[in-house]
């Protein structure tokens, strides 16, 4: 599975909305849309570290790095030097 698919799947499993029609694109800001709850920011960091075996440093903890699927993919690729 590609990084984008893994990230999309993780977000989908953790949506805080129950509308079956709730969908998000790879450039949609899941925080601004209210699709996730407050603990999700930390859960997402745990997931990224475990799944992609990278360390998210204090300098990386900018919410802008993690608001959309594409931004998370970009962040992971940057960390892995891809």
């Amino acid at each position: 599975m590609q990084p984008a698919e893994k990230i999309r799947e993780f977000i989908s499993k953790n949506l805080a909305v129950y509308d079956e029609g709730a969908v998000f694109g790879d450039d949609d800001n899941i925080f601004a849309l209210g699709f996730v709850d407050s603990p999700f920011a930390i859960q997402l960091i745990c997931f990224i570290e475990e799944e992609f075996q990278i360390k998210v440093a204090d300098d990386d903890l900018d919410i802008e790095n993690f608001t959309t699927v594409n931004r998370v993919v970009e962040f992971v690729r940057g960390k892995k030097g891809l």
Partner: protein
Amino acid sequence: MGDVLRQEEIVNEARRFADEEVRPRAGEFDEHEELPRDIISRMAEKRYLLASLPEAYGGLSLDPLYYGYLTEAITKACCSTGGLITVESSLVGEALLRCGSRDLKDKWLPLMASGEKIGAFALSEPEVGSDAGAIRTRYQPEAGSFVLDGRKKWISFGAIADFFIVLASCGDQKTAFIVEREFNGVRTQPMKGLLARRASHVAEVELENVHVPAENVIGRPGGGFSYVVGTALDHGRYSIAWSGVAVAQEALDAMVSYARKRRQFDKRICEFQLVQGIIADAVTKTHAARALCIRAGELRKRGDASAVVETTIAKYFASRVAVEVAADAVQVHGGNGCSSSYPVERLFREAKVLEIIEGTSQIQQQLIARYGLRQYCRR
């Protein structure tokens, strides 16, 4: 295997320390509303203050499971003493470790570990509790620094803290700062007459035109709520979950010991089936709470993202069990349970606070319900 043995020995020593040096004085701490400096110094000597943090910073590098066991051991003897570990390790220490710059970590963590500096986590306010995102303490950038104004309340160890992690807002942005007690405009007022945690030096903290240097920002400006508060509360809930197990187990020990000695109707009261029913429920609930904490600890050890919700479940359940078992322990003690001559009176009060701090049970229920609604829907 070597590290497991090392950690087991630390926890065994913590149990001895709690039995010999903490439990005998717990009533005195509660009565005098003070955790004395000598106990804080002893905890620092034993490196308990930052037990979960790396040894490089003066901690014990305990993994989450053994950190839980240590928290249980100390909190079981005295909730305020255990509370100091929660504040230093889980709230302030872990937030700094995860979100702080190298300079902040290098400066503050060793000082905290040695007990030279006490940190406190200043989030709640007079008008802001569960709705933490609505904080009213404000900051304004000014000539390379920040100016803070506001008031914080219910700050554990705030009356003796040397510095505070303060969450403040500027427009939509929320940022966390290290505010030192010696900065101009910082005042604290101890809060007395509390239901519990009386020895935890709980205080109000007033910030009036406090100038904070830019290097004291924790993480990036705007990341205060999602990451600094998120990290602190996640670790704090884990610590409180184990505190629930601690209070329940201490109450259970007291309940059983009393029921085996107390005689009524020419029998020991433990021989009555209705009392045995209370004991059976207390044993079962306490074991179940501990199992949830162990499960959360194992997931945390693996860095599994589901540890966040499992920790929430453990905190919600263990704090409720603490309330129920402590109440039943008072019931088994009868009139004696209503007297401060017996520890269950204090445990009864201490248990209730666990359902409120680090997120009320109702906030935990909301988070757990959201998890259940997405996890267990047949499609």
